[in-house]
């Protein structure tokens, strides 16, 4: 082995093959799917948060630009405000749906307090119809989540993929199946509540 590696041509051949592998992996992740680590506690019951281990998710890039996503899917998207950062939230409304800007369970006066300390719902309206080509996203942990309540509807062109499963903290590994992990508790009032 040693005399073979002493040859500089052999090194360049290995480097060329490694770059080919990296290229294929990059394109595969961008167009088909992959595994990536996540951080943050905005999706806490669904995607757990750990002190030292980052949870890993399996995502499908075939659903990029909102192809075939529906209400209840967990998506990854480029943040409309900071385009270099990615977010991972649950779709709450698709084009044409009416969504509540105000967090359920909060009082209506909060919408006044919002503009003062700039923490919640900077839209100034209580109910919004999601415009064409957009979706309304919200984290499962509504108390600790920067989502559409702050920056408005997300253009579907910013959606980079759909989360299929949580993989790595093996205790929390599960498939995310749209309707399976979101339960309609009250038939009439349609509140989306996370099942544990």
């Amino acid at each position: 082995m040693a005399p073979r590696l002493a040859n500089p041509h052999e090194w360049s051949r290995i480097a060329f093959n490694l770059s080919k592998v990296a290229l294929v992996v990059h394109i595969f992740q961008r167009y088909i799917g992959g595994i990536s680590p996540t951080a943050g506690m905005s999706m806490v019951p669904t995607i757990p948060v750990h002190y030292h281990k980052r949870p890993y998710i399996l995502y499908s890039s075939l659903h990029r630009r909102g192809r075939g996503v529906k209400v209840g899917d967990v998506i990854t998207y480029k943040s409309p405000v900071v385009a270099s950062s990615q977010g991972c939230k649950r779709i709450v409304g698709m084009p044409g749906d009416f969504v509540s800007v105000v967090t359920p369970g909060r009082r209506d006066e909060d919408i006044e307090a919002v503009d003062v300390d700039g923490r919640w719902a900077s839209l100034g309206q209580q109910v919004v119809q999601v415009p064409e080509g957009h979706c309304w996203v919200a984290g499962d942990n509504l108390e600790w989540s920067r989502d559409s309540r702050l920056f408005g509807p997300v253009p579907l062109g910013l959606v980079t993929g759909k989360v299929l499963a949580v993989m790595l903290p093996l205790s929390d590994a599960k498939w995310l199946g749209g309707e399976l992990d979101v339960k309609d508790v009250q038939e009439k009032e349609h509140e989306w509540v996370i099942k544990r």
Partner: protein
Amino acid sequence: MPPKPPIRIPKTSAPVARTRFAPPPPTKSTPRTPTRSQPSHPTPPPPRTPWYGTRPIRSGLIWTANTVAMGCALLWVRDHHVDVLSIKGVSMAPTVNPELHETGKKDWVIVRPYAQSGHGRGVERGDVVTFWKTHKPEECGIKRVVGLEGDTVYVKRGYALDKQEGKLGGMPDGLGSLDPDAVDGRMEEVGKVVVPYGHVWVEGDNSRFTLDSRDYGPMSKGLLMGRVVWIWRGWGEWVRMGDERGKKEKARASRVVEGRAELPAVFLE
């Protein structure tokens, strides 16, 4: 000194001693056989390799892997280095597609994607950009960037001049908030838009036939694909991307006052 006698070369070859085992000398009448000349050390001829090689599975896998890598390389070049698009609309009319409504001649554009494509870094005022449309996520648009984040845009038509509230459906509109101290509680100034952080304001050159930021508001930088550098109008007709608008067209565009924007405190880590 007497001259030397000329050297005589015998014309007839020396007689070969014919033995019982020696081959007979070749005669002209007998055809030459291909096995006439025997090498000193006879080696078997190299085996003919079939078209699929000696190790067909291995070479087939290598061939497939190289083909896949070549396709990925093409996609990578398209995503990060150069892209070619055909333009169908007249929204950029004097600059791109100037004759579409008369002759139906379409232009092709050469797009240089921004570094770290999709993040919109390095975009400047006056760039002609291609982007994914906000209202149709699978379609590409081409417009001119008029205002960057923090700029104040005074529009001459569009949603900012309409009194109808909430027309954008909750999208960031850049309009000022309601002023409760004013006499009638209206916006601070009609027709004034401040482009929010992380967004750009795009407008078409042909302001009569264009659907742009004046209708759907500021556009997120994450939707930008790249900057148009060349226009291709057939062989030999390469045009560098510029501004072909006349004075009338420019007067119809929005007025921009440059400004700066900072990341809102809510989005800090």
